[in-house]
């Protein structure tokens, strides 16, 4: 089985490499199709390979090259990474089905196809890396490829800046990750990840803490944890739709993988405060993410903030798992790990779906601005249905996937009272409460995110003229099916994830998680339980009731269709609908202190002659992280750069002198 998996993964890697090479053909339609077919097949192989490993529930490792400190390349796939591999495969599969209709063949697309497939390959590399060197090389390649993905439309205003922001924050994170690995390698004397995990107990406690914090922050930059999140709302609108899907479904998930890798595998059995720190950052990200999502009017910015929120939820779950682990609640640790991974997979699926559909909306209407959209359900019916499924999933409404995983996370967090240290228990429950707030706001946010563009009347001419002809449907449709399957098929998903958790934490909770036959899932024996499968069946049954009532009542009453009652006005105009901004107004008023909005109202009737005319109203949320955190840092960096600029004279001889000095210093230090 492992051999089959390894073969599948090798096939995936080869196909992606081939797709990257074939990317050059994408200047023509046939070439683009060929490259994406290769990429799609690669995705399918990766999906199969990842699933095989996860189902098998044991790690597979293979070393290539000699056992030297730097030169050896160890490839290993453990079940934890396999979950991410499977997700990578699924996303690549969906994007592959989507891309040929989304991109127009040409030089830019050719470059993009190459870079994107290399990015897939690099991501796979991160997940199968068995030693630190290979991990870091793959990680850096992934960052650079993602940077180039964001740069696809580099001529558009703001794209270069957004891509640079992504790169800058990514590299800052990378430096922290390198430091973390360097400390580990120095203390364990190996770069092999398996060996590091074995020997991690020899690392002194203080260094262990340092390594964990460095890793958490470093991967946090990539995962988009608050306050390292500011690249997401910039990079996503800049990137093409499938690039955004790749960034949001996968790249930030790799950040989570890094945190899980350090927290559960490389440094197992950490102190409780690691978990609490992780939990706190997660909960903060969730709340801040959703609050900003409610104020974003650009569909992609909105989804980017929603990604921050979702990553926050996932990281909260992982943090809680670490805390429970530290207090030796092994079953709850495993349970929350399962819940977090479930949420991660779900987020990858529906966020990819939503980004892809945003691409369709942008292609057909020419804008992503919610206040210029509306009424698309009539013009893009398939897109609307698929988006609705994704929206219901991400808003965590039953019986779809988001509901199952968020429900599991809540159930887990509310077990906080089982921890003997009351303060810790309270912190966990407070985190649960803030996730509840997040959930409520997320429903508002997605009611807005779906309702404003798809329902009502079109707010612009382009939106009124949109047509779905020739737009990609299969790729997002596949993801919509996945949303439903991951929700209704929860018992199967949980069986697989249980194996992953067993392999990662050593605890098997399948017997408690799934009651046989009934498929009811109690978070903790005697606490609560439900069955997503039965719930779906039940919902389907009660959905018939109104239809039956309608049919039963119909023969007796004569039907007369009249317009909606509107108070007798001449005609509804699109300007009589709630805009995206005003829909979120109650939230804006409630969290005024956080948003610190700036208003701008222009009235023609303020004109001294008192003539009536149009009103113009704009409003902006103050970006507090940019202003109070990053602006001072950037100022400091600039100041520092000015200070050391004289060193950079441009004189080659001077640079040779620098190298000479460094070599001398290294030789002087090395003997110690």
């Amino acid at each position, binding site marked *: 089985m492992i051999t089959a998996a390894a073969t599948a993964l090798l096939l995936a890697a080869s196909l992606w490499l081939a797709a990257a090479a074939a990317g050059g053909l994408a200047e023509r339609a046939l070439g683009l199709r060929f490259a994406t077919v290769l990429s799609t097949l690669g995705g399918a192989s990766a999906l199969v390979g990842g699933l095989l490993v996860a189902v098998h529930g044991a790690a597979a490792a293979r070393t290539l090259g000699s056992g030297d400190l730097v030169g050896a390349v160890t490839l290993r796939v453990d079940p934890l990474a396999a979950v991410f591999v499977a997700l990578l495969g699924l996303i690549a599969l969906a994007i592959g089905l989507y891309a040929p209709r989304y991109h127009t063949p040409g030089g830019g697309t050719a470059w993009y196809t190459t870079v994107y497939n290399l990015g897939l390959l690099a991501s796979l590399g991160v997940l199968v890396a068995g030693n630190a060197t290979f991990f870091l090389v793959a990680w850096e390649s992934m960052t650079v490829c993602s940077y180039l993905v964001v740069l696809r439309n580099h001529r558009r205003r703001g794209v270069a800046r957004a891509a640079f922001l992504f790169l800058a924050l990514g590299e800052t994170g990378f430096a922290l990750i390198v430091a973390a690995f360097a400390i580990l390698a120095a203390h364990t004397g190996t770069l092999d990840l398996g060996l590091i995990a074995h020997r991690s107990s020899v690392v002194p406690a203080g260094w262990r803490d340092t390594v964990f914090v460095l890793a958490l922050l470093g991967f946090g930059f990539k995962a988009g944890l608050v306050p390292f999140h500011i690249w997401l709302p910039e990079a996503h609108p800049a990137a093409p739709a499938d690039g955004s899907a790749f960034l949001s479904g996968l790249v930030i998930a790799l950040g989570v993988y890094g945190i899980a890798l350090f927290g559960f595998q490389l440094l197992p059995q950490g102190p409780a405060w690691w978990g609490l720190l992780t939990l706190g950052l997660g909960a903060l990200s969730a709340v801040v993410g959703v609050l900003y999502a409610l104020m974003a009017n650009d569909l992609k910015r909105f989804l980017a903030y929603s990604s921050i929120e979702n990553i926050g939820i996932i990281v909260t779950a992982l943090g809680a798992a670490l805390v429970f682990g530290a207090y030796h609640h092994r079953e709850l640790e495993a349970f929350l790990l399962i819940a977090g991974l479930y949420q991660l997979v779900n987020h990858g699926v529906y966020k990819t779906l939503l980004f892809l559909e945003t691409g369709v909306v942008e292609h057909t209407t020419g804008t992503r601005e919610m206040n210029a959209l509306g009424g698309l359900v009539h013009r893009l019916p398939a897109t609307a249905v698929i988006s609705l499924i994704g929206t219901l999933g991400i808003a965590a409404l039953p019986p779809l996937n988001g509901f199952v995983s968020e429900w599991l996370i809540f159930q887990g967090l509310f077990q906080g009272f089982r921890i003997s240290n009351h303060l810790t228990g309270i912190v966990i429950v407070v985190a649960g409460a803030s996730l509840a707030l997040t959930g409520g706001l997320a429903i508002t946010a997605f009611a807005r995110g779906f309702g404003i563009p798809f329902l009502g009347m079109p707010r612009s001419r382009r939106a009124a003229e949109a047509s779905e002809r020739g737009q990609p449907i299969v790729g997002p449709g596949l993801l919509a099916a996945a949303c439903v399957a991951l929700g209704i098929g929860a018992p199967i998903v949980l069986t697989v994830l249980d194996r992953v958790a067993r392999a990662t934490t050593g605890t098997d909770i399948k017997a408690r998680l799934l009651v046989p036959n009934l498929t009811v899932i109690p978070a903790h024996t005697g606490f609560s339980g439900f069955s997503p499968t039965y719930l779906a069946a039940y919902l389907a049954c009660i959905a018939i009731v109104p239809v039956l009532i309608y049919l039963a009542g119909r023969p007796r009453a004569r039907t007369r269709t*009249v*317009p909606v*009652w*509107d108070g*007798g*006005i001449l005609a509804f105009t699109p300007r009589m609908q709630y805009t995206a901004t005003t829909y979120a107004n109650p939230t804006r008023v409630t969290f005024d202190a956080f948003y610190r909005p700036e208003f701008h109202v222009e009235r023609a009737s303020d004109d001294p002659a008192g003539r009536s005319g149009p009103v113009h109203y704009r409003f902006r949320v103050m970006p507090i992280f940019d202003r109070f955190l990053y602006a001072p840092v950037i100022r400091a960096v600039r100041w520092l750069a000015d200070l050391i600029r004289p060193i950079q004279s441009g004189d080659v001889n001077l640079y040779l002198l620098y190298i000479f000095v460094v070599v001398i210093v290294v030789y002087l230090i090395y003997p110690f």
Partner: protein
Amino acid sequence: MTEQQQVEAELHERAVALFRRSLHIRTFDSGSCAVCESEIRLLSSPYYDLHRLGFFFTPAPRHADLLLVSGVAVRAADHALRKTFDAMPEPRIVVAVGACALGSVFTEDELVHGSVDAVLPVDVYVPGCPPSPLALLHGLLVAVGRLEEKVQAFRFDLRERNPA
């Protein structure tokens, strides 16, 4: 009258009989001088209290059984009047209230129709300028068949006893 119309008329009558117990009223101002509106508002005041008779005002024509139209039927308000009427479920009653709505104050011109009949099929006419709240109550009760019409029998002959 065709058979179809006859059946519909019977149905209408049966349905209107249902209104005897309770009925919801939507008002429409189609160019009144604001006095008819004032008298209509007073119907719900303690002195007249139309709720005791099972009448209620409703802001939504969707819930209304009776449309109380006052004013001269200004052409500019046609659209709104038609929409309000269309929004009401059947069966429905239209009551024109006041001399203006009956078409006797303003003659037809480019701006006004002259009477509500020109826009809607009126069921009950309530004369008066303005019709006092009692006249309005009488009109409403006539509309739902709870009171007999008096005006048909009354000949406005000084020598006859006032039927009241």
